[in-house]
């Protein structure tokens, strides 16, 4: 028998969140949360990127269209980007992406951006808790079921 990947049947909806974290700040922040043993929900799947400025709109769209319930982008605080202005550019790109999603009535609320530094392990954990709850309230991403896209 070939084993097929099946969704586990749980009572409560568990949001799947894809997180793009910049290597120098937010990823280190997440790491700090881990090493400091701060609890946060396991709903986020972390992908390390070199800078929030390297997150092309395609990554975010792909996650959403593949059915992720939320997409998180974490970068250094404005002014602190290790490549000087990557996060300023990321900021504009995300404004544009959300604008386009909004034009076509696709839930832009599923895309979150936060600036989290390497020392903000607590903030990272809190943000993950907050986002998981907000996405839980939104419910599953309807695109997950759309198979003709």
């Amino acid at each position, binding site marked *: 028998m070939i084993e097929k990947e099946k969704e586990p049947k749980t009572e409560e909806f568990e949001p799947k969140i894809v997180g793009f974290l910049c290597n120098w700040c937010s990823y280190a922040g997440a790491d700090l949360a881990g090493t400091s043993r701060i609890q946060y929900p396991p709903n986020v799947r972390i992908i390390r990127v070199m800078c929030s400025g390297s997150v092309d*709109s*395609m990554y975010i*769209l792909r996650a959403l269209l593949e059915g992720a319930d939320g997409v998180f982008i974490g970068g250094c605080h404005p002014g602190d980007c290790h490549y000087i202005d990557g996060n300023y*550019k990321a900021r504009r790109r995300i404004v*544009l992406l959300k604008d386009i999603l909004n*034009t076509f009535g696709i839930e832009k609320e599923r895309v979150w951006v936060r600036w989290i530094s390497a020392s903000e392990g607590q903030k990272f954990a809190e943000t993950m808790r907050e986002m998981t709850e907000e996405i839980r309230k939104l419910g599953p991403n309807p695109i997950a079921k759309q198979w003709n*896209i």
Partner: protein
Amino acid sequence: MEPKILKVKNGDVTKTINEFLKELLNSGKVHSLLVPQAVPSKKMVFPVLISDSNQLNADVFAPLLPASTARIISKMTKFQATKEPIGVVLRSCQIRALVELVKLNQANLENIIIIGVDCLGTFSIDSFVNFSEGKTPTEFILEAFKEKGNSSDKYLRSACCVCKDPIPTNADITIGVYGVDLDKEVLIDVATKAGEKVIEDLKLDDTKSVKEREKSIKTIREEKTKKRTEFVKEKRSINGIAALSEFFDKCINCHNCMTVCPICYCKECLYDSSVFDAEAYKFLRKADRKGLFKMPNDSLLFHLGKMNHMILSCVECGLCEQGCPSNIPLMDVFIPAAENAQKEFDYHPGKDPEEKIPMIVYREDEYLEVGEK
């Protein structure tokens, strides 16, 4: 420089303009002209690069845009500016596209003399080739224009129906027809030093009808803006993932909309690359996740992704829609998306060569709410 006029001989506007263009070529002020001209079968009109004035038979008002003229100029100038001056006859949307390509370092305007033409709109290739009103499409659209009627509206491409800027901006010389009595004259408006230099040896008459023109331009802009606003409002129904995916139901993933777009200049598009090819198991896991999915896949990813890459520079020329083999009315989504995105960044593609494309600049003190809540 005060606007000039060409006196129309025997009511033949096209011939009058040809004489003017011929003089330009013969004066040696330009080496060549890039002008729309019929191919030998007379079925189609394409831009031709012409240096022999004896073979000039331009059809500048032919209601057809077979391909992006801005792209053609990019092809000729992106590696090196032309040393000999070339006069290029362009509609307003193609000048806008050219300005965007210059900003993207894909074209060089040195020694390029932009000769803009007031645009009366363009037909689909099919309507143009199979035109059956007993006259040529050019004769037809010029007559409809002179009668101030709307008989040509039914042939116009949707992009042209709602184009709010049919008057060229950033042209060195404009061939004007709005607010001009075409039975008698055609306007030659020279806006730059380069333009002045090109026509300095030609004998042109002065005009008095400038006020008329301003009024006429204002009217056409208002009319078209109103149509465009209604269009955008009507298309709000393409809302939500179900409606949007249904809109693209006929898409066969050929990516021609991207190939013909003047703004999409990348030689290898990310969405054409092998980034999306993967081991079979990745497809199988997706099938497990969704139960089933349509192939070829990622069509909406392409469209939304492409929009993110180019919508701020979209000049609404409608070439994507014209190039779609499945006849998907792409302007229904591109115009609303362009309208919203360009408003968000207060950006006007093609309007000002000095205005920076929003995605390459930023201000520290903007969008402070992003990332904070």
